């Protein structure tokens, strides 16, 4: 790594090797395991993170969520999802 990653609609986000996603039955939520850290994801973040698998662009990912949650405006979903993933990217838990 040598430059700050800035996500945009064409980025293809994925988790880096050190971050492992899994559903934890004991805590009943999705979690990301990373060195010295455990992220417990809320229900919405859990939905989003499952689509972060290195196959979808951010735009496609937002489209899928917009179809699924059709009561929310796409622009709002895009803003929230981008902010959430950028936050994880700044901490090194999402790469593209």
């Amino acid at each position: 790594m040598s430059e700050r990653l800035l996500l945009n609609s064409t980025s293809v986000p994925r988790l880096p090797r050190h971050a492992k996603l899994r559903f934890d039955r004991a805590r009943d939520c999705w979690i990301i395991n990373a060195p010295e850290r455990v992220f417990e994801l809320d229900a919405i973040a859990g939905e989003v993170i499952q689509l972060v698998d290195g196959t979808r662009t951010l735009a496609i990912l937002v489209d899928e969520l917009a179809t699924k949650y059709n009561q929310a405006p796409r622009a709002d979903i895009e803003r929230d999802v981008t902010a959430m993933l950028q936050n994880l990217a700044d901490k090194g838990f999402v790469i593209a």
Partner: protein
Amino acid sequence: MIDQADAPANAQTECAAATGTSDSRNRLIPYAVLCELTHRCPLQCPYCSNPVELERASREIDTDAWKSVLSQAVDMGILQAHFSGGEPTVRKDLEEMVEHASKAGLYTNLITSGVLLTPARLDRLRDAGLDHVQVSFQDTESENADRIAGFRGHAKKQEAARMVRAADLPLTVNAVMHRQNLHHLEDMIAMAVELDAERLEVAQVQYYGWALKNRQAFLPTRDQLDEATRIVEEARVRLKGILAIDYVVPDYYARRPKSCMGGWGRQFLNITPAGKVLPCHAAESLDFLEFENVTERPLAWIWEHSSAFNRFRGTDWMPEPCRSCDRREIDWGGCRCQAFALTGDPDTTDPACEFAPQRHVLEMPIGEAGGEIPEFVYRRIGNG
């Protein structure tokens, strides 16, 4: 340990403030188990967090006992297994344990000095499912680093860090900083970037065990510390998205104590080479506690019912001013080992808190900080 709060974690002792999660029966679920596979280590760091009474190899529990511990950990809802020591790579069965843990679903982390690593071994560990490696450094300059470690290993460590990245494993550089190397903090940050680490952990010496014997040799001055904090803050902005830096201010200069291990018996279990289960790696310094052994009792029973885990769990044990303080479930009254080491009273507020009745015990060491540097007492069996 739990992020959300975004607080720094410190490999040497402590973790982010969090209250922990409970299951449907309202029992606490631990997050991680620290497996101290051995106390054997070629290095002799004078700030080692191992107890002053080191376990000998003949007392180490065997592969099957460790595997059983790891399986039980998964059943308890534990998410991570950290393999440390001593130097965990002296155990030839490390791969077997990593594979067992990884297959069971645990996130696996190796905490090593790196001096015994080879590319072939790293490949085997990666193939066994190892998720992450932490390599510790004593300094950036080999002469000083080797003097601190009591071992000629600095060059080998740099090589090991490169091997970790060559094996495509993620790397954290661990640096324990103190008055004899803080002036190289900027170089340490640059070295972590150059080694392609994703994380740098700037830990401070925690003063109990071996480190308490060497306190005057390690405790930085307030000015050194302020400079270090400035450097870290600047680097965090500059290296955002490139290198994550965890940084913990030494207790002695803090106004509030750190939440030790996220609270006693709330998030972690530490298992010694001989199989004793501790609430924290330093807990054996509380010599009045009795620790259960994994060869004699189920891990879940020990976590839930053992006297050692319940002795300082929650807030009932607390004295004033903690008992009525609104931070009592944030820092949990601070470190019990530190309170005991500094005052002789394990039930008193950690002197690192400005409200502590025994705060004055820090005046002497802080007053002497920056004075003459004594010789190290090196970590060796028989030197305690």
